[in-house]
């Protein structure tokens, strides 16, 4: 079909397929169009339905506006030139469009290094957290063992304790990290007991040499990796809970069939259960990836900006090449910071665009109701 024909086709109405006239259809043709419209649209049922549809649409659009507006305003203000911030006639849309802000942020704040580092860290954390939470959740869902209820309460406990409570302790813990974990804690207590609360430096050094400490785990990926691999990182209690609820919905017969066919527990898990729960795992991966991406608590704690290992949340600062000494300085600086935020979020939003369908499907299919 040529283009012009297509165009014609758009403007000429297609003929309706002729109705087969039977006995009953005659009545249909006898009632006038007006009568039919009246019967269809002028009754309480239709009016109610229409009212509901309009109400729903207005509400949904309104709330979508509420959600999108901050991002929209942040993007537009970060595209404004310096002069626009003192111009009272400029409200939302810039008069002088410019990309200088973004250029300066990318060049001065080492955006791409930070992007690479954060991507590495988030991928590392996302993958390991997803796997570990799936394994632990499966253990809680499908096996009977002693103290199961109490141990699951511990999972909930890790969710409830605010980070702030263990912040100091976490710094102390990972400042002198060792592989056996509990020993410096123990020797700290022992010294406290014997020396009346003070540790003499020499004995402490002897001890640390003996155990073979990694001198300082801050500014490395170790703390995050360890927390992720043990299911203790940000909101991992929630992931374990979700995976457990999902696996509880999986019928036992499936595994029994696998056992009968001669597969072991681990083989069943790897070959049958894991591939089956891909949707749920994608959901959890997206949660953990994006929450790690935007996390400031753990990254500030373990990788402070001074440490040289630049992450995305360290780039929020005013670039030196931009001259902000100006009448509208505060508004301009705010806009620059917001521009940093937009630059941080853009990769995440792109990922979300591709993954959102899987995310929602995964949660829908999870059967959290159990």
């Amino acid at each position, binding site marked *: 079909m040529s283009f012009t024909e297509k165009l014609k086709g758009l403007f000429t109405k297609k003929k309706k397929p002729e109705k087969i006239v039977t006995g009953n259809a005659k009545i249909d043709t006898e009632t006038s169009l007006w009568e039919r419209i009246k019967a269809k649209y002028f009754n309480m049922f239709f009016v109610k339905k229409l009212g509901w*549809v309009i109400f*729903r*649409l207005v*509400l949904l659009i309104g709330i979508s506006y*509420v*959600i*999108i507006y*901050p991002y929209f305003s*942040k993007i537009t*203000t970060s595209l404004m030139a310096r002069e626009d911030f003192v111009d009272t006639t*400029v*409200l939302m849309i810039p008069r002088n469009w410019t990309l200088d802000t973004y250029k300066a942020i990318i060049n001065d704040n080492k955006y791409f290094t930070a992007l690479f580092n954060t991507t590495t860290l988030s991928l590392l954390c996302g993958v390991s957290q997803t796997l*570990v939470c799936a*394994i*632990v959740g499966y*253990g809680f869902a*499908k*096996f*009977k*063992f*002693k103290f199961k209820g109490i141990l699951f309460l*511990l*999972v909930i406990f890790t969710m409830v304790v*605010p980070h*702030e*409570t263990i912040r*100091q*302790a976490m710094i*102390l*813990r990972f*400042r002198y990290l060792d592989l056996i974990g509990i020993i410096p804690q123990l020797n700290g207590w022992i010294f*406290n007991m014997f020396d009346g*609360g003070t*540790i003499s*430096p020499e004995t402490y050094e002897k001890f640390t040499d003996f155990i073979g400490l990694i001198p300082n785990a801050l500014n490395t990926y170790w703390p995050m990796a*360890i927390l992720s*691999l*043990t*299911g*203790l990182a940000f909101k991992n209690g929630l992931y374990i809970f979700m995976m457990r609820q999902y696996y509880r919905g999986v019928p036992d017969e499936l595994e029994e069939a696998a056992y009968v066919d001669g597969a072991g527990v681990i083989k069943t898990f790897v070959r049958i259960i894991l591939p089956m729960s891909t949707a749920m795992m994608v959901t959890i991966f997206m949660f953990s990836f*994006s929450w790690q991406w*935007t996390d*400031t*608590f753990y990254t500030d704690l373990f990788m402070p900006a001074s440490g040289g290992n630049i992450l995305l*949340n360290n780039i929020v600062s005013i670039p030196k090449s931009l001259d902000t000494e100006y009448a*509208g300085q*505060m*508004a301009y600086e*705010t*806009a620059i910071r*917001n521009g940093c*935020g937009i630059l941080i979020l853009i990769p995440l*939003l792109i990922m*979300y665009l591709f993954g*959102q369908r899987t995310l*929602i499907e995964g949660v*829908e299919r*999870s059967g*959290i*109701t159990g």
Partner: protein
Amino acid sequence: MDKALKTNEQATVEVKPLKVKKRKAKSLEKQKSTFGWLFILPFLLGFFLIYLPMIVSSIQISFSTIAYEDIGQVLTWCKPLFTNYSNALLKEADFTKTLVECLGGMAFDIPAIIIFSLFMAILLNQDMKGRAAFRAIFFVPVIVSTGIIESIDLQNTLAQLGDQVSNLNGDGVEGAVNTGTEIINAIDVERFFGSMKIGSELAGIVSGWANNVYNIVNRSGVQMLIFLAALQSISPSIYESCKVEGATGWETFWKITFPMISPMILVNLVYTIIDSFTTKSNVMMSFITTASNEANGKPLGTAMAWLYFLIVILILAICTAFASLFVFYQRREK
């Protein structure tokens, strides 16, 4: 005869593996329990080797004072053991005030979040045009609005406050550009109501409400997802039979939908309480952070955090106990 023999043989053959099976079944159960331990091993290791020591040392910090010496921090027990706690409760003037303010805010926010997310989940579950697009927009906050945007907003408000303090006489040169996350500025509302001669206080209240709506929408993403999952799991045949019996939409909601998702209301209640009490933007959390960032403030801050945690646990227990009275379980646990 041959046939009978064969069946006999078969019978005897069948008996033997049955016996073996019985013995195997016992060991299988044991085996399965050890596999259970194996599967939750990562969490157990992490909890007992990393998390529990952290909790213990955190409690220890809250009961002691920190001195800085050559080798680092040295902890000594406080002389009256509860010094930090009594300091937090009695000497810090703002602690109890902030706590009451925080609890008051939560008393409004938590029911609002749950009702809103339930309502929106029901809307988003209905068949309509553009449902996928609306869903995509509604779950953007789940992905995006954690730490970083909050901290940027915090920096912005701090900068603005600093600016206000440094040039108090600056009379609104800042222009009209709305740079924050506020949906509606108090200025906008004042302009809007300007002709009606409405005071600035009322304008402030109206804009406060509008921005609270934004806050609630932003915080109810995960809850909406959970409710949506719960709504999807209700079998449509129940609704069909309801329709046949002639129930209205209102009745269907209260008699079917509400009881069926009531377990998820409990889950969401717990999640919302935990989430809103432990986010960074919480008044109390930021108060504790600033307190522990002060010189020698770590023990005091940790003590405050533990007090706060105890209160949160108490509220959580009361709310859960109260809500679980109304929860309907379709099938009981085995």
